[in-house]
């Protein structure tokens, strides 16, 4: 046993796959201990906030001390964030269309450009061939560049509760800064929020955990059934073998995924918990394990040590457990790994079709994708709601497949590189 393990951990492929898998497991276990927010809590009003650090605007204005920093490029950066290269070109286009010669316009000279713009822009003016969307864009642009060159600070005012009049509370200069460490409310959303306004990263970690559990349950159910039937069919033979192989053939002919869709639809949305789905996946995917185990057992059945055991009068159970199982153990472990990986994929596939576990209790990787797809995140370019999930699924199944390939090479020396 010790020797086998040593051999296994000397295989580069296995070690890489194993490390990735353990890393994922550790993240799933440790992350909730550090960040205790509920994964399904809706924190954002609105859909798909982009990833980033969210600093409370009220707190930063209200902060006790404001630090004055004299930075030369601050104004330029402020202008650039409101007026980028495309906007300048669009302005030039408008100005040319309204009759200013092109050589008089310099898009790099901000004050002059804005001056020309202010003097010439007229939202009511119709330009031939301009779409309504484009006209609205110009109106928005005009609003956003309004007062962009001003060097005055902004005045904070609050309503007097008695008179209802605005009273000046203070002024924020353009050179005022706040130290982020002094702002009490900051939320880091590394992967933004999803369509419901939930923190994608926290949800993703929790979903990975649930999906792994589904994979484990489905894999163990499928492997146990497949192993038992495969052992019986291969060793006992005869009628048991025929019956098992017949059922296995049936399952091959009716694709298991179609069966899965039928069953999970029949269970109904209300009763579909994560565990139910996992068991159903296990029940429909044992077939190839049974086939593979059977063919392994067939090749072992007439070995000398099995015959000897039979002659010594051991029972069938004893022979299977001590003379056959140890020889196919490595194979069964490999089959289990593949079943776990395909169980996770099956859950994701089911959920994408809207037939996965019900949505209110736990997140799963498939459900996250399902929601992101329903809310069109892929069309809208909200990559953070969809791509991290696909990447996680791919990474899990990559690590499991890599472990499997590594094991395969350890136990079948002929296919080693």
């Amino acid at each position, binding site marked *: 046993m010790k020797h086998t393990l040593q051999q296994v951990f000397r295989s580069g492929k296995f070690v890489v796959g194993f490390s990735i898998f353990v890393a994922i497991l550790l993240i799933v276990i440790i992350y909730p201990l550090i960040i205790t927010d509920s994964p399904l809590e809706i924190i954002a009003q609105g859909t798909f906030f982009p990833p980033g650090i969210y600093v409370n605007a009220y707190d930063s204005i209200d902060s006790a001390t404001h630090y004055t920093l004299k930075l030369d490029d601050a104004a330029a950066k402020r202008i650039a964030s409101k007026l980028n290269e495309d906007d300048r070109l669009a302005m030039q286009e408008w100005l040319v269309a309204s009759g200013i010669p092109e050589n008089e316009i310099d898009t790099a000279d901000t004050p002059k450009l804005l001056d020309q713009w202010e003097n010439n822009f007229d939202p009511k003016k119709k330009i031939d061939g301009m779409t309504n969307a484009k006209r609205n864009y110009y109106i928005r642009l005009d609003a956003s560049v309004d007062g962009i060159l001003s060097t005055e600070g902004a005045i904070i005012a609050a309503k007097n509760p008695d008179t209802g009049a605005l009273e000046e509370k203070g002024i924020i200069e353009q050179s005022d800064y706040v130290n982020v460490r002094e702002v009490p409310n900051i939320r880091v959303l590394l992967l933004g929020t999803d369509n419901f306004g939930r923190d994608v990263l926290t949800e993703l970690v929790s979903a990975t955990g649930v999906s792994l559990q589904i994979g484990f349950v489905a894999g163990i159910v499928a492997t146990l059934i497949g192993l038992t039937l495969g052992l019986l069919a291969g060793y006992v033979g005869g009628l048991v073998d025929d019956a098992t192989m*017949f059922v296995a*053939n*049936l399952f*091959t*002919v*009716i*694709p*298991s*995924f*179609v*069966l*899965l*869709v*039928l069953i999970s*639809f*029949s269970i*109904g949305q209300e009763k579909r918990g994560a565990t139910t789905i996992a068991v159903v996946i296990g029940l429909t995917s044992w077939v190839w394990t049974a086939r593979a185990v059977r063919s392994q057992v067939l090749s072992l059945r007439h070995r000398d040590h099995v015959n000897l055991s039979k002659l010594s009068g051991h029972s069938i159970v004893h022979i299977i457990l001590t003379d056959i199982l140890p020889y196919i153990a490595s194979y069964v472990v490999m089959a289990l790994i593949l079943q776990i*990986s395909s169980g996770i*994929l099956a859950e*994701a*596939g089911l959920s*994408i*079709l809207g037939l996965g576990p019900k949505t209110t209790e736990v997140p799963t990787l498939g459900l996250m*994708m399902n929601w992101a*797809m329903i809310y069109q995140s*892929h*069309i809208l*370019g909200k*990559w953070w709601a*969809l*791509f991290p999930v*696909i990447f996680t*699924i*791919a990474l899990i*199944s*990559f690590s*499991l*497949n*890599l472990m499997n*390939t590594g094991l*395969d090479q350890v136990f079948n020396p*002929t*296919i080693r*590189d």
Partner: protein
Amino acid sequence: MKGYRKYFLNKLGWFSVTLVAAFLLNFILPRLMPGDPVAAIVARLAQGMSDATGVQAIYQQYSDLFGTNKPMHEQFFLYVRNVARGDFGFSFSQYPRTVADVIASSIWWTLILQLPAILVGWLIGNFLGALAAYRKGIFDKILMPFSIFASGLPAFGMAIVLLVVLGVNLGWFPTSGGYGFDMIPNRSWDFLWSAFVHYQLPFWSIVLIIIGGQAIGMRSMAIYELNADYVKYARFMGIKDRKILRYVFRNAMLPQITGLALSIGTMVGGALVAETIFSYPGLGSTILTAVKGGDYPLISATALIITLMVLITTFIIEMLYGFIDPRIKAAQSED
């Protein structure tokens, strides 16, 4: 030849029994689903009708039409008789279209998408796998992890990645449907071009997945064969590498052919998801709408067609297999 005939008859017998059992299951399973689809149709038709006896009469009429008020075994024999005449009855969810009509309009999309994609993926995958086993070195080092990653990526994952990158960001291909939404299927060049452009994303998403899996399988088979005694012997004899390779790959190919037969069955499942993501008008989308609408006749018929496709391909391939590799036949006739 006598051995082959015995092998053939034996296989044929097994396939017939499997077909009958699959037929039975295809009939029973969808009918075990909860919910009354006839009631759903009647509710749709009798909207705004307040006369209870009228609604009852409509319900009665449709139950008679669909035969859902008869006991299960009677329904089954009726179904067998109708299917034997090629009549699959009405689709519940798309009434008054018949099941045959619904399937006829969707099956070609699936066949034209799936078969070429599976074959192309299989050929490229096997070629790359064999090349990796033979060339080794850097080519192998790059191809292997890529293949493991690609084959581990779920079919829908690949579909979504292609959809976002090529369809949405680059805008090279349309993102959904089997043809332009402003068109009606016809034989004009415009329509064919539109169908061709819509074909690309689902096609390549299936091909890329298959390449990965096949390359891994072929690589290990080819390495196994390259180390076999007959190869060493042939090398000692001074036979040219090119000639040896032909034998090696012919032998390594055998298990891959079985893999092809089995993958056709599983592909339909993967296709179900890929077709839904691209809203492709094939069998996958049909099954899904049928399941969601509790449409027994349509589910039974689509499942039956898939069953038949898998059975026939498996049968043909096993027949060819017995022909190509005499060892299989011998092993079978011993049992």
